[in-house]
């Protein structure tokens, strides 16, 4: 019996993922064929309800366990879905703790706004109904993922998320680029999931075998399963696995899975291409929800990760590298959505390395990372939606065909500016606080390299964000489309405004009091206030951007000339895609599957055919014995007699 026993929201928490699911079924099977409009509305309402419920839940939860207090994980509802063996079962359910609540709120909230926005954005597209079906499916999967009380449920929804994002990216299925993008996204993440799966198998099976150490299976409570997070994150399991030397490998495998979904280097290649999907989708999946699943996973398994310092460190450095790497590329892209995509990469890099620098004792990074996840969800969604509005208006993604949109679409302009300031970490916008905390945590735990990267990237981020802002909204129109552009409809602007408001104020939440891990959320402030250099680097970034791109664009041209080769390499995203292409097509297809196919046809199958041929041949050969000569026959007979007699003689005597 717990404090939430009589909270409606808690007792019916299962509705939060279930609502989008039901609406997915209803819309997909019954409404879609009838009316597109209704489909959109139903879908939106269902998610909005879920959002309402999850906020209610958050309210109840945090009033039951107020700020600073211990935040226990409670299972609101669960049932045994799949039983491999006793204590090796999947108890599908809803886990309610601060982490899952945070994600639930973010997901449902952003999702409902995106739904709303899409009603306007997708108007007139064919497959309107299909679009909302997919959107519901995705929301359901994402929610199922974040409420999972056991790792196998996580995996299950992890996969479903992958599929629904595949469907959404490939929404324009007649467009080859979209098709290949969706394939790429699915296969790359699937490849990562493979490692995730192996990791799950490893940790679950070892944990299962270890149960005897914690007393005979009988002595354990019946519903305990080796998949449960409650079991896996218990220190006993971690220690035991560590002794077997399996903890670090398992954790790294799982981290690879996370890296796949969160598009960390080198598995990031799918995310920029994923921009082929409708823009709201990018806002939902590739800004606020799916790409942070990796962060969520690492946070969820933070204890085992922390127990194996190495795994966490690997995560930290991968994050840091991605952070820098993506930021650099972002500076050169011309497609507004791609720039945002790369900025997403680098922001997720922040979150991951924040987790990476944290440890069982120094948990500031953990809080900071999730804080950034929280704020980032708002301003990055806002950026994407804003970009969507712009694209909607001018029908192009290339920033050099825009310009001077500030006057044409004021609301979009303001909101986009707010978001840009937020991501650039300018006080008092949300980004400032979270990013500052991350950098502080890196400094506080003496990871100076990472700290430096963080600081530097803060500047770069500000630079490229203002680059696109300036080029898009300021200056004079660079194309006819701009002149015809006009402000987006209400359904699209309302979400923008709401998100803008949040990006402005979200930073003031005293986040650490709500979401933290371990005993205390240690504020490991460095000797001097970290926010000063952070802010400075941000502002300097802005200044440089202004200097280069404001007014005439000669400067930027000159700059690109100057950089030359380096610029081209960066512009080509360091040729990572090409490398992948080479490996898959030239190596795997040509040197593995083609030979196997050949081997199968020629050797294995050939062997079978050869047997048949030899049999027939044998027949032909033996048939020659039938010469038609009576005396040949009789000779055979006489020899036969002798043979038989001799054989009997030999064998019997």
């Amino acid at each position, binding site marked *: 019996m717990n404090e939430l026993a009589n909270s409606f929201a808690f007792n019916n928490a299962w509705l939060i993922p279930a609502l989008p699911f039901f609406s997915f079924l209803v819309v997909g099977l019954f409404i879609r064929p009838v009316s597109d409009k209704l489909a959109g509305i139903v879908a939106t309402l269902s998610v909005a309800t879920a959002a309402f419920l999850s906020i209610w839940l958050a309210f109840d939860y945090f009033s039951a366990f107020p700020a600073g207090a211990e935040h226990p994980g409670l299972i609101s509802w669960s049932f045994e879905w799949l039983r491999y063996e006793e204590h090796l079962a999947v108890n599908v359910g809803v886990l309610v703790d601060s982490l899952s609540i945070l994600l639930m709120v973010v997901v449902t909230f952003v999702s409902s706004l995106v739904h709303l926005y899409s009603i306007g954005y997708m108007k007139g597209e064919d497959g309107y109904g299909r679009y909302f079906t997919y959107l519901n499916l995705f929301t359901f999967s994402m929610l199922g993922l974040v409420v999972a009380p056991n790792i196998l449920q996580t995996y299950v929804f992890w996969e479903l998320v992958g599929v629904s994002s595949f469907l959404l990216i490939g929404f324009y299925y007649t467009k080859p680029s979209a098709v290949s993008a969706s394939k790429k996204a699915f296969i790359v993440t699937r490849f990562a999931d493979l490692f995730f799966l192996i990791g799950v198998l490893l940790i679950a099976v070892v944990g299962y075998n270890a149960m005897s150490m914690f007393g005979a299976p009988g002595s354990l409570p019946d519903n305990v399963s080796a998949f449960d997070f409650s079991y896996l994150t218990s220190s006993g399991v971690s220690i035991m696995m560590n002794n077997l030397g399996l903890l670090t490998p398992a954790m790294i495998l799982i981290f690879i899975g996370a890296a796949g979904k969160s598009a960390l280097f080198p598995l990031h290649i799918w995310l920029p291409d994923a921009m082929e999907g409708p823009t709201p989708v990018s806002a939902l999946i590739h800004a606020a929800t799916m790409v942070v699943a990796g962060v969520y996973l690492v946070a969820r398994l933070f204890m085992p990760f922390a127990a194996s310092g190495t795994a966490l460190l690997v995560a930290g450095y991968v994050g840091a590298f991605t952070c820098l790497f993506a930021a650099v590329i972002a500076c050169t892209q011309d497609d507004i959505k791609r720039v945002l995509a790369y900025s997403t990469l680098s922001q997720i890099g922040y979150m991951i390395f924040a987790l990476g620098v944290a440890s069982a004792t120094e948990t500031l990074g953990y809080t900071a990372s999730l804080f950034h996840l929280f704020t980032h969800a708002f301003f990055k969604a806002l950026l994407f939606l804003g970009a969507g509005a712009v694209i909607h208006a001018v029908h192009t993604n290339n920033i050099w065909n825009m310009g001077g949109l500030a006057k044409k679409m004021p609301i979009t302009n303001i909101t986009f500016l707010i978001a840009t300031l937020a991501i650039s970490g300018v006080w008092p916008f949300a980004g400032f606080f979270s990013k500052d905390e991350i950098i502080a945590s890196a400094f506080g735990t003496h990871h100076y390299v990472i700290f430096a990267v963080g600081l530097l990237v803060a500047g770069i981020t500000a630079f490229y964000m203002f680059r696109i802002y300036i080029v898009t909204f300021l200056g004079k129109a660079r194309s006819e489309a701009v002149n015809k552009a006009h402000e987006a409809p209400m359904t699209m602007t309302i979400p923008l405004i709401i998100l803008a408001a949040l990006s402005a104020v979200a930073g003031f939440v005293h986040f650490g009091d709500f979401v933290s891990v371990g005993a205390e959320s240690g504020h490991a402030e460095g000797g001097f206030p970290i926010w000063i250099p952070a802010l400075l680097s941000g502002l300097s970034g802005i200044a440089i951007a202004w200097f280069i791109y404001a007014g005439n664009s000669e400067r930027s041209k000159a700059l690109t000339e100057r950089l030359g080769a380096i610029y081209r390499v960066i512009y080509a995203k360091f040729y990572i895609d090409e490398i992948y292409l080479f490996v898959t097509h030239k190596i795997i297809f040509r040197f593995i599957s083609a030979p196997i196919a050949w081997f199968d046809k020629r050797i294995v199958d050939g062997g079978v055919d050869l047997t048949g041929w030899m049999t027939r041949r044998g027949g032909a050969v033996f*048939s020659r014995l*039938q*010469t*038609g*000569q*009576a*005396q040949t026959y*009789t*000779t055979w007979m*006489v020899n036969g007699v002798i043979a038989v007699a001799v054989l009997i003689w030999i064998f019997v005597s």
Partner: protein
Amino acid sequence: MSFSPELHHWLILSTILFSIGIYGVLTRRNAVGVLMSVELLLNSAAMNFLIFNHYASKPFIDGAIMALFIIAVAAAEAVIAMALFVAIFRSRKTVDVTQINTLKG
């Protein structure tokens, strides 16, 4: 000096006869020749029966009876065979067994 042949002498004789018969069957090209060699085989066998009857089972006469029957059978066989040869000769104008080889393969 009086030489009285023993069992093995007789057996050797019949064996020689038998061998000649086999040889004939395998080598004679004329069907009639083959047939004659077969007769040799049968006779050597009949002879065996007589010999064994004489040396092995004295009071009984099964062997002798067998011999008689063998002669009869041999005759029957010869009749059929000759009839066939005649028929063949009509159609093919030869009884050379090596020439008669349309059925093969």
